[in-house]
């Protein structure tokens, strides 16, 4: 009973915090002294005044659905907050295999997100001072810099390999599977060279396909992730399914963390959102993966397919809706190209989560996922 009461209280507290944070962020983005040209321009089109009429998170429903095309093309400066005009600024891109990619300008957000994420990692498997390998998409993605920052926050240094996911998507679309295999091998060779060169690498980021490829390539050479010193892995993507996790833990790693010495944590996120963490994934729960957004900086909701302003019940299926609320970036109600089941709050994350994340069924056939 007392646990229920304390969870209820934590949920209520988190909601209050989110409401308060929402008002602060909306004030920043729509105030003439701080807001970016995009939102200040949009303000004129709205039928309400965000500065006076957004009083809690639910009030964000007053905004029209966020269109991802707003993020395509220039000038990218329209997204720059007025009070950040003299700050060093990055631009990160998502998509872009064909056509103009979506872009997001960033000053500090990626560092803040990954500093917060760092606090969720267990030191036993992600040791302070341990070096990192970043085995994921580089180029215009934010991931490379983000992982590098994560390593630095934890007192380590990040080694990187070069990986161009847009080329990988093209190879798949052209049916050049031999080239795809060769490119994968090229990446694996670089990763293994670094891992076996005495750099004290203990932790790594890798996408599911690349982790699998790396483990198989190491096995081919008669060694393993554990033998080359890896103890902590963080990974992400819709390819991160319970069955893949099971295969990875049971067969590629050689057992759960206490047996194999390797701990892997799934994450869910993209350039537009921060990084949603997962509840610990265990065999007892059939490797179920439930993600929780870094509230109040970002919120994920699972909404009805026919009404994006209504959440589905716990355990029910719906589309993933994302809201980003940082001092640098405001995205109310962006419909992700994913669907999943709504998960209940729990002690660590007293707000909604999402499990079973997979490509949205209406667009799944045209989406190339898990390419790197």
């Amino acid at each position, binding site marked *: 009973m007392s646990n229920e009461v304390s969870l209820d209280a934590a949920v209520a507290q988190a909601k209050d915090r989110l409401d308060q944070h929402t008002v602060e962020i909306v004030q920043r983005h729509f105030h003439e002294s701080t807001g970016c040209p995009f939102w200040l321009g949009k303000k004129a089109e709205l039928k309400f005044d965000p500065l006076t009429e957004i009083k809690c998170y639910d009030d964000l429903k007053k905004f029209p659905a966020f269109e991802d095309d707003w993020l395509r093309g220039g000038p990218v400066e329209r997204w720059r907050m007025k009070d950040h005009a003299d700050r060093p600024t990055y631009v990160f891109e998502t998509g872009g295999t064909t056509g103009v990619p979506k872009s997001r300008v960033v000053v500090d957000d990626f560092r803040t997100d990954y500093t917060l994420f760092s606090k969720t990692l267990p030191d036993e498997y992600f040791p302070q001072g341990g070096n990192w390998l970043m085995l994921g998409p580089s180029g215009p993605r934010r991931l490379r810099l983000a992982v590098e920052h994560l390593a630095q926050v934890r007192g380590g240094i990040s080694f990187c390999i070069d990986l161009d996911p847009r080329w990988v998507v093209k190879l798949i679309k052209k049916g050049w599977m031999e080239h795809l295999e060769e490119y994968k091998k090229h990446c694996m060779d670089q990763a293994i060279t670094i891992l076996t060169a005495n750099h004290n690498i203990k932790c790594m980021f890798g996408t599911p396909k690349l982790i699998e490829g790396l483990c198989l390539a190491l096995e081919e050479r008669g060694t393993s992730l554990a033998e080359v010193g890896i103890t902590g892995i963080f990974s992400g993507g819709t390819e991160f399914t319970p069955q*893949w996790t099971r295969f990875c833990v049971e067969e590629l790693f050689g057992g759960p963390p206490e047996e194999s010495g390797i701990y892997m944590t799934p994450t869910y996120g993209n350039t537009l959102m921060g990084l949603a963490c997962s509840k610990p994934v265990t065999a007892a729960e059939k490797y179920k993966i439930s993600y929780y957004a870094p509230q109040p900086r970002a919120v994920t909701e699972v909404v009805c397919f026919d009404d994006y302003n209504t959440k589905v019940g716990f355990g029910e299926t719906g589309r993933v809706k994302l809201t980003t609320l940082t001092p640098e970036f405001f995205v109310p109600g962006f419909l992700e190209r994913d669907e999943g089941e709504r998960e209940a709050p729990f002690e660590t994350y007293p707000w909604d989560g999402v499990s079973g994340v997979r490509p949205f069924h209406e667009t799944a056939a045209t989406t190339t996922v898990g390419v790197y």
Partner: protein
Amino acid sequence: MLEIPVIRWGKPYESLETTEVVHFNTGEPIAKVSSATGGMLTRDMRKAGEARKILKQFSIEDLIAKVGKAADLFETQTLPLGNGTQTPDEFVMHQSASTGLPEHMCRSNMQKNCFVMRNMTEILECLTRGLPLDILSRGYGMEDRGVVVSFQAQTSILGAVLPSNSPGVHTLWLPVIPLQMGLVLKPGSSEPWTAYRVASAFEQAGIPPEVIGLYPGGHDVGGALLTSCSRSMIFGSQKTVDQYSGNPSVQVHGPGFSKIFLGDDCVDNWEQYIDMMVESVYINGGRSCINCSNVYASRHTKEIAAALAERLGPIEALPPEDPNAGLAAFTTEGVGAAVMNMVQQDLKADGVTDCTAEYGDRLVEKERCAYLRPIVAHAANPECEIASKEFMFPFVSVVECPQDKMIKAAGPTLVGTAITEDMNWIGDLTDATTIDRLNIGPIPTNRLNWLQPHEGNLIDFLFRSRAYQVPQDKLAMVSG
């Protein structure tokens, strides 16, 4: 409900991810099939070499006998399947329910598989052109004519990405086990039945289960299979054919574009051959690569098309359990209408006549599936788009074309039946590298003589004939 696991070198593996196989007409689930992943298959392939070592503990003759016994079990016995069992009748019902093929066609495909399993000695004799089989086992030996030969195995296993909608293709991989090589199969999503039942029959007949892997799953599983097996076959569309053409490790089976050619010396007697043409177009629901999709003739083409339309046009879509059912259902939503749309575009072109138009609507849409009734088109020349098309239902275009231009105009042809006694033209047809199987005389394109090699000889694919020299005084050593 049946729960069907992944089979990893004989061991069942229940995945956390499953897909349901459903009845095409009722939507009722028939089985829940575990999904493998590409990484799982890739990792298992590390042990592929074991399969040949295990099978080489048996002689080829012994394996042939076991496969023959498996044929009886496949045809008549209740066999283990996943968490349950399956009778022969259930096999037919399951296959019909998930693929849309009429039950009697499923039964007929079952017989075809059994024929190949029962006649493996003759089939291998045909595929090897009479080579003593122990030469394949040892890798070297001496032929009756006193010449040392060597056939080196290029793989320990054959991988195959199997189709969902053509249960007739399984005969192609059945001879692999007697050749002392393992099998790694990715069953089609709607047709897991044959692969699992054959594997079960093999096991019951005494073939070690450790030599077979069954990996149902998504595209990543197919990709992993083709990458990690040094010899594999895949069944697919023309796009698949183009993708793997020139890859020596992959034998690709796509559309057949099978044809009937009527020579100038016989075409005036075209009426004699209508039954043969109808069978070639219509048998097996028109779904096979060996079904005829074009008839070429220099004259009488309009009369031929009208006669075919008269025979094929009235055919109705009947329920799958009806012994007279001749059409297979399109079980994926929207596919029947999409195919009809494609055909209609081609029928509108100049020089094309829709000869079945007067026999009623061709598209028959049911609640959960669709049928396409036979379509016969007349093409005034081979340049018409429709003259180079093949569809997954009884479809044929009768193409007017001078005899001396036919071979070039016809293009790739899996089975070509030529009605002619003109020896010069027979010579040209024999030399045509675009024709795979050639029938001279009124043999329906679908009637394959199993004692002739089919589309890519399995022996040539799995073994390499190479030089193997032995001094004269050591000849006795290799002569077995």
